[in-house]
């Protein structure tokens, strides 16, 4: 990697060298190790392990619950971002700061308190469980945990976009006779959509890998409430390294593809910028 064009600033070689070195030691070589180890098994073996019934069930839950969690966040995150940017109400600054809470709270603590809240004798569970809504130890618990950890992504992606959204554009629509709903759907929503989708993708990506909060609240039953990262841990505990690695490779590839998608989304989101 060589700096294109002449650039008078110093330190490119040094900083780039450090970056590549650090990146290699911490990320690239260990991940490379995983792939190398996976290459030791045959393709058929890999395929068998990566698509075993139990693994498929785990993917289904992981991706399904992540998808639902991210969708909930897309809807409510949009409302939250809208309310926080547009309206004044008491406690607004507090709620605004609180949005980052899932970023800051260790996932184990999140899982602990969420499972406690939704358990039959918890603050919410005591009302919900008699209604048949079992939050703890069910796939629903997985959705709850993944919604919690993904919550900041949509809000924080959308907020700056909404804040920099020119009010004049909405006013222009109003002077042309458009009502609020019409303005929202034909002018505002299309502008916000890329940010919402990006936030959704970020929440989704985060949810797929999530472990700490989920294992406390999910029942961890195979085929039912067992997420893919947990299955990796279980395979490890069964001394089944190859199966664990096969699953890990699947998750890694998915993560990488998601990252690329997110980068493309961000580029797409800025397509109307000059």
């Amino acid at each position: 990697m060589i700096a294109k064009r002449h650039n008078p600033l110093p330190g490119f070689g040094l900083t780039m060298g450090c970056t590549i070195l650090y990146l290699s030691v911490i990320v690239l070589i260990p991940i490379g190790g995983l792939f190398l180890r996976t290459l030791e098994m045959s393709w058929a073996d890999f395929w068998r392990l990566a698509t075993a019934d139990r693994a498929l069930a785990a993917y289904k839950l992981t991706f399904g619950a992540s998808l639902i969690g991210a969708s909930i966040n897309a809807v409510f995150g949009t409302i939250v971002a809208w309310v926080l940017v547009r309206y004044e109400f008491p406690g607004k600054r507090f709620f605004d700061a609180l949005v980052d809470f899932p970023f800051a709270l260790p996932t184990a603590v999140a899982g602990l308190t969420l499972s406690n809240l939704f358990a039959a004798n918890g603050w919410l569970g005591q009302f919900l469980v008699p209604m048949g809504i079992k939050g703890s130890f069910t796939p629903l618990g997985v959705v709850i945990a993944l919604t919690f950890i993904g919550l900041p992504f949509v809000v924080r992606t959308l907020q700056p976009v909404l804040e920099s959204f020119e009010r004049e554009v909405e006013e222009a629509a109003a002077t042309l006779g458009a009502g609020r709903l019409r303005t929202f759907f034909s002018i505002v929503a299309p502008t916000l959509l890329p940010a919402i989708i990006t936030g959704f993708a970020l929440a989704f990506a985060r949810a797929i890998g999530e472990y700490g909060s989920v294992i406390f609240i999910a029942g961890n039953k195979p085929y039912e409430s067992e997420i893919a990262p947990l299955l990796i841990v279980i395979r490890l505990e069964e001394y089944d390294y190859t199966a664990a690695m096969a699953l890990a490779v699947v998750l890694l590839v998915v993560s990488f593809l998601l990252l690329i998608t997110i980068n493309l989304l961000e580029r797409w989101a800025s397509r109307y910028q000059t």
Partner: protein
Amino acid sequence: MGGNVSRMNRDATAKSQRGTEESPLVKGLLVGVCGLFLAVFLLLPLINVFAQALAKGWQLYWASLREPDSLAAIKLTLQIAAIVVPLNTLFGVCAAWAIAKFEFRGKSLLITLIDLPFAVSPVVAGLIYVIMFGLQGYLGPWLDRHDIQIIFAVPGIALATIFVTFPFVARELIPVMQATGREQEEAALTLGAGAWRTFWHVTLPSVKWGLLYGIILCNARAMGEFGAVSVVSGHVSGVTNTMPLHVEKLYNEYQGPAAFAVASLLALLALVTLGLKTLLEWKQQREYQNAQVSATEAAVGRQPE
């Protein structure tokens, strides 16, 4: 990701916006939905941690925290953060400098690679170190012969934590450094300042809030990491149990209130993180506004001729 949210336009919304505002009913409904959603998903879990921690009284609370294993876990967690945060900060500054101030081939690939730990499951992060350094892994036998312990010891926990918190500082700094551009540094160079001096006196002050912000997030995550550390820790009480692992251990030992007591410390850490973050944003905003005011004053001061 993470997002340094600007609050610059807030004042603009203070004006009345007749004709482009929702009816009070819709407004109230949206605020209500937002409030309810945040209360159920954020506020209740937070309060619950403290309520459960103190459910059996302050005495038990203090006793759980003063237990030697808890103290050891707190110490280890601080120790890990003290190793991880400076290293990732240093790296973050290096990466941000190279990426923000220079153009080169493969830049977007590099950024994607830096982002990778955000998306990789912590469990996979732990696993790759087991494969690298475990006795059944690549370097394990060699390390074992030379009596070097990586996993199931502090270095392994630190490595796993570094991996997971790796992008925070870099990702916060890159956009800030890109936004400030190169002119300031070039100006300093033309004035004869050396590279180090330029960085220290010109670059760093202009990105200090972004840097601090990244450090705070990195620290919060480093102290709270569970999945990756769980895989490489070995769970030796008083030796390789970090606070989150200790929470799990206590929880599994029927010591609910004690588990929540340690958890409450972590929740407190989260609150402090949020507080600092809000403070930083406020400071940044104030600095920005001051700059705006003096700019307007300068503009107003100019008489039209």
